[in-house]
């Protein structure tokens, strides 16, 4: 049985806001291919203030899918649509006191249903940009698609590279066989052979994470800048760049430049930066493109 938190169990056994909202004017329907879970989120949004007045969910899924749906409706009720969009899947998981790594996709599904519902409210079409693969690293909940993309994008050659860029394999190490298989496959597609004895391509030192709370805000910002500086050469080599714009609480706003901005890689690069920051800082940090700053501020 999964090691679910009391909060997960509580939301599962006593779900809040189950069922469809009457007179809903925002509906999001999404499914996660892993698990086969699916969720319909119905919202009633005030047309003028854009405040979410009521939210309801209908979920075909496991305990944590139902709990994630339930807690999501609780989080977003009373928020404006823009405020609600700021809710990340980590926020959903955090509100549940965490989810097992295998179940993180349930929180992702919740966030996607929300995005889909908002798009529906605004008369836009929502497109899913997130692909999910088989879970490889259970310590850090990293799936095969993420690893594959990182291997492609950053020309990774060794398991150590993969750990440096994605964190996968950095814990108990039992997924190294799986990571080697991915490397073997991707390198073959690139016309190369996987060499298990090769030196890591990107020798990024892995400093011990520092204790959170031990730093002043200025020290934190300096540290974040330092991490970004360390990552810049790799980004510049790929024709891009990154610049720190602002730090607010645990959110770091960055400006993605060159090949990194606008392209499909941006989201992934940001994911990589976020992973790296969390590793070094030893705390949860959200990296957001500065373009989203105005919207959030509004």
């Amino acid at each position, binding site marked *: *049985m999964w090691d679910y938190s009391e909060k997960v*169990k509580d939301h*599962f*056994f006593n*779900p809040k806001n*189950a*069922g469809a909202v009457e007179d809903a004017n925002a509906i999001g*329907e*999404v*499914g*996660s*291919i*892993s*698990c*086969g*879970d*699916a*969720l*319909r989120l119905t919202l009633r949004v005030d047309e003028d203030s854009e405040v979410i007045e009521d939210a309801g*969910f*209908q*979920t*075909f*899924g*496991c*305990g*944590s*899918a*139902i709990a994630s749906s339930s807690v999501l409706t609780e989080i977003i009720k009373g928020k404006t649509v823009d405020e609600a969009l700021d809710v990340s899947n980590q926020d959903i998981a955090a509100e549940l006191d965490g989810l*097992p790594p*295998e*179940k993180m996709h349930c929180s*992702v*599904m919740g966030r*996607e249903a929300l995005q*889909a519902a908002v798009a529906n409210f605004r008369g836009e079409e*929502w497109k*899913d940009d*997130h*692909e*999910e693969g*088989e*879970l490889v690293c259970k310590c850090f909940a990293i799936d095969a698609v993420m690893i594959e993309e990182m291997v492609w994008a950053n020309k990774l050659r060794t398991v150590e590279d993969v750990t440096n860029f994605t964190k996968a394999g950095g814990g108990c190490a039992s997924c190294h066989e799986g990571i080697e298989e991915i490397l073997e496959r991707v390198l073959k597609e690139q016309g190369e052979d996987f060499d298990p004895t090769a030196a890591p391509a990107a020798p990024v030192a892995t400093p011990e994470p520092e204790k959170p709370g031990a730093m002043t805000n200025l020290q934190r910002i300096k540290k974040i800048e330092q991490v970004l500086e360390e990552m810049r050469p790799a980004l510049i080599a790929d024709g891009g760049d990154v610049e720190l714009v602002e730090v607010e609480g645990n959110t770091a706003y960055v400006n993605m430049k060159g090949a990194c901005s606008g392209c499909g890689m941006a989201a992934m690069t940001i994911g990589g930066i976020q992973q790296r920051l969390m590793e070094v800082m030893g705390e949860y940090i959200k990296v957001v493109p500065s373009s989203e700053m105005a919207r959030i501020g509004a």
Partner: protein
Amino acid sequence: MTDIYLDNNATTKVDPLVVNEMIPYFTEQFGNPSSIHKFADGVARGLKKARKQVQELIGAEHDSEIIFTSCGTESDSTAILSALKAQPNRKEIITTVVEHPAILSLCEHLEKDGYTIHRLGVNKMGQIDLEEYTKLLTDDVAIVSIMWANNETGTLFPVEKLAEMANAKGIMFHTDAVQAVGKIPMNLQDTKIDMLSISGHKLHAPKGIGVLYLRRGTRFRPLLRGGHQERGRRAGTENSASIVGLGKACELALEHIEFENTEVKAMRDRLERGIVEQVPHSFITGDIENRLPNTTDIAFEYIEGEAILMLLNKAGIAASSGSACTSGSLEPSHVMRAMDIPYTAAHGTIRFSFSRYNSMSEVDEVLKVVPDIVAALRKLSPYWDGDKPVEDPEQAFAPTYA
């Protein structure tokens, strides 16, 4: 209400009589059976007796055909790898898509090493096509490995017949009988089965003890080499307490085999009939006419298995599910997919598996709670509306899939 255990295909409680038999082998007869002193005196005798008890349960011709291993998985691996090693010119394996991972993962791995794996598909009842099987029986095949009983649905394959067909073509036949041994009668000396896997913990013996039956004369290459234990066919100091326990468990299984096929079967039948009658949109999966007496696997449409299990667990009932979510894998059970069970049902399958420790009153308790659990979850389901599925469910709810 005390808790009700209906997950006996996952593992079973060790029979107290088995425990009694084992205890002296931890504290008194703890010697190495190969040693020459009184601490080892009785051990060799204990092992010999256990070998006889296993032999009797499965109807083997000789007790030397019983090789003790560490588990069902080891027996499966030993059988297949031995066949490949002993016949280096044969590079193909025939198996089915519904085998246990102990076979399937190994085969996948062997495929990477260049072996050809033929995986027989199954129909909606979970049965293979004999014509397709016949066509695959060629001189390139090193071994056929087909399970006797499926762990999820309890569906029985006609392994005696399949073994004869393989034998007629000079091909080795192995069966993973981990779920079948002790639940249905068998007499291996009347069959052409060359190798057969047993796992102790499925028949009220401890976990971590298994058997590979190896027909006399079958060419064999050990998996573990070392000492001369098990006549050199499986090195490593014998797990004597567990071996003795397994022997006792086999004796008890033989005593109870009629009970299993009458009383236990009656409990199973009553449960599944009761559920299907009371719960709309539920159905039994697998080959209903050719099944283990203790197993039923029921699909509850439009809801998901893990959620059902959590509510059952809250009600003190232990069962298991073919849902993807319970295993942390991506897909619903490969067995359900292979039988072409629709998505919205495959995720909601629940397996109830009985043993001689269950009772009819437990069946009644379960029947009291299952309909409400299903109804409660359907209330949350986007595929459900009031007291029935939404009209044209797949159309009415068609989410964007990531």
